[in-house]
């Protein structure tokens, strides 16, 4: 892989290494970079160039997705700082949070019985999105305060975020299943 792409995603996009990301800057840098390397720029090029172009465009997409998404960005920042995630055994001990997760999960399982299943599902999805947004604000605060040794706390918040992500995914799958059923 090419030398420049072994740098961090932040360096690639010319952005400061921080949880706060200027999304407008990120978006415009992304477009500039893709304009330079995207395979469509090499439609008539040799196989070699097309391959390199695809690898670089792939990596720029990867970097963009990582920096754009608070969950992935947060994880990436911790990992850059040397923090190691243990995904197999990670959970949270926050009882109130776990209760809420159970409640949301129960609501999802009851969607089918609702009079308008899609509306009911939409409401739950909005609620999950809202809760996830609150968590992002929390992450913002934790990263900004930069208290030494706060990595564990941040990792805990990221794990919670992961729970929401899973719920969002399940809700989307349920939506597709419901659509298939009415079709």
């Amino acid at each position, binding site marked *: 892989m*090419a*030398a*420049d*792409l072994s740098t961090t995603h932040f*360096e*690639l*996009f*010319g*952005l*400061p290494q921080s949880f706060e990301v*200027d999304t407008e*800057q990120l*978006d415009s*840098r992304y*477009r*500039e*970079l*893709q*304009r*330079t*390397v*995207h*395979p*469509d*720029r*090499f*439609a*008539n*090029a*040799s*196989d*070699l*160039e097309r391959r*390199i*172009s*695809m*690898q*670089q*465009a*792939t990596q720029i*997409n*990867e970097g*963009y*997705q990582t920096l754009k998404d608070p969950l992935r960005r947060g994880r990436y920042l911790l990992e850059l700082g040397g923090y190691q995630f243990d995904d197999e055994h990670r959970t949270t001990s926050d009882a109130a949070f776990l209760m809420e997760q159970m409640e949301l999960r129960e609501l999802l399982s009851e969607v089918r019985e609702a009079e308008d299943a*899609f509306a009911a599902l*939409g409401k739950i*999805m909005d609620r999950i999105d809202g809760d996830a947004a609150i968590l992002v604000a929390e992450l913002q605060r934790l990263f900004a305060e930069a208290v030494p040794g706060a990595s564990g706390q941040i990792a805990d918040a990221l794990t919670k975020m992961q729970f929401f992500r899973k719920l969002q995914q399940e809700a*989307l*799958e349920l*939506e*597709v*299943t419901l*659509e*298939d059923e*009415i*079709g």
Partner: protein
Amino acid sequence: MALLQISEPGESTAPHQHQLAVGIDLGTTNSLVASVRSGIAETLPNAEGVHLLPSVVHYSAENEAVVGQAALTFAQTDPLNTIASVKRLMGRGVDDVKQAGGYLPYEFVPGSSGMPLLHTAAGDVSPVEVSAEILRELRMRAEQTLGGELQGVVVTVPAYFDDAQRQATKDAARLAGLNVLRLLNEPTAAAVAYGLDKGSEGVIAVYDLGGGTFDISILRLNKGVFEVLSTAGDTALGGDDMDRLVADWLMQQAGIDAAADHGRQRHVLQLARAAKEALSAEEVTDITVSRDDGSAWSGSLSRDDFNSLIAPLVEKTLGPCRRALRDAGIRAAGVQSVVMVGGSTRVPLVRDRIAEFFAAEPQVDLDPDKVVAIGAAIQADILAGNKPDDDMLLLDVIPLSLGLETMGGLTEKVIHRNTTLPTARAQEFTTFKDGQTAMSVHVVQGERELVDDCRSLARFELRDIPPMVAGAARIRVTFQVDADGLLNVTAEEQTQGVTSSIEVKPSYGLGDNEIESMLRDSMEYAAADKDARRLREEQVEADRVLEALQSALAADGDQLLDAQERSVIDAAAAALAEQRNGTDYRTIKQAIKVVEKASSGYVERRMNSSIRDAMAGHSVDEFES
């Protein structure tokens, strides 16, 4: 060699010869070819001045296949040999076709690779071959109109087409002797046609209801970049289904048995389509259905009744609209305009319902039948290199998640839907038995949890894994999806660095060998002709490689290369220059490879330096105030 051609500002490259390139909309009902001529993108008519080519192929024992309007005339008299709506069969398996068989009145026979073949008077043909006939017809039309051989084409596909359907489309184009520059998603093509026309910025939705497929895409337009945020749809939903609903109603009214012969069914379907089209302008339309016994039923259908017949179908398109908005993270109110594409968006109920859903007046200024082909032509013109200064860029997404089968028939997602392309993801596997040297990986596409509910794409057999104790081998499998949305898989054993071989068994599709043999069989590729063609192609490629390399070296060879590196490249280039004048295309091809290998490090350095240039002036400091 575009990378090597990155030129300094103000320094112009050699004058460019205009390349003949076209965009092709390969539709379920109709197909079109368009090209940019004198700066204007327009669809190309046939000799009679007709632009739309019905996507119908008629086969007979005596004559060559007939395509288009001429084929359509056989629909009632010879229905089994008159293949229409073949797009619905692309990349589909025998079981899918059985499901669809109720309304596709053809005789299917199972082919190799799980792909169904259509039994015709001219023998068994695959959907890929039928599509290739349509593409060949459009190619001839384009070459006659434009006066030369086509250098490249952009072929459009429904955004919601999966890997198998895309691959089948690309295979059909290859079979028709076309050089595919890109498979472009239909809604994205439409957005290009509209976006460039209006110079619009912001978020738009493209609602594309064709003859047999439905797509919805949400895009963000920004200074020539068309970024698809999300896409959703249904590859088996379209205007054909409306026709069928009306036909069912007509048969009921006229007392025609649902098991009527194919010819009768075609007759009623054509009446149904005519009624649907009439009701786009009229409030009521009169219909006369002839029965087998020569008697006839006469009656009328009002727009209101028609609307209630098709309302469930229109509602069915709203689910994907909702999902696309959610995936894009945008509310209906955040969509600035809604572009209508596809002939079926002429139906007033469709327009009304979409206007209501997005709370925006749908845009219908461009001909919904032609807009996709026009967008494809614009993209083809740019990809062919006719507009070196144009900075239009299309960033598309993968429409359906890619996953792997895990224990218990469950799917594990590897690449999520609506990820921007190109994208790649590596996954590690290990052996579960001592000394295990082979392993099977099943790749599926879809959103459902169970493998059986997703579409099976391929089974990969990993071989030559070095024998080790269970769990010690680490096989890294990389899934790369290119800008066309096509998947490519590679595997490497990590602990010993052995590249495992992969045997790909596409679940529904043609192997490379089958394509090659079909190409050989097709008349245009007589053996002698083929070698001459290959030689010409390699010579052109050699010239292109050398020219690009020389101009690159002149620009920055001294800065980026040391004397040693330079001499290796120069030697390879000199060898190629000599081989180029030979008569064996294989030697030239080999010499090109040597040049590419010698210059690969240089090419990467140039790419990186162009990335640095793109970011130049954006120092990290400027944000740290």
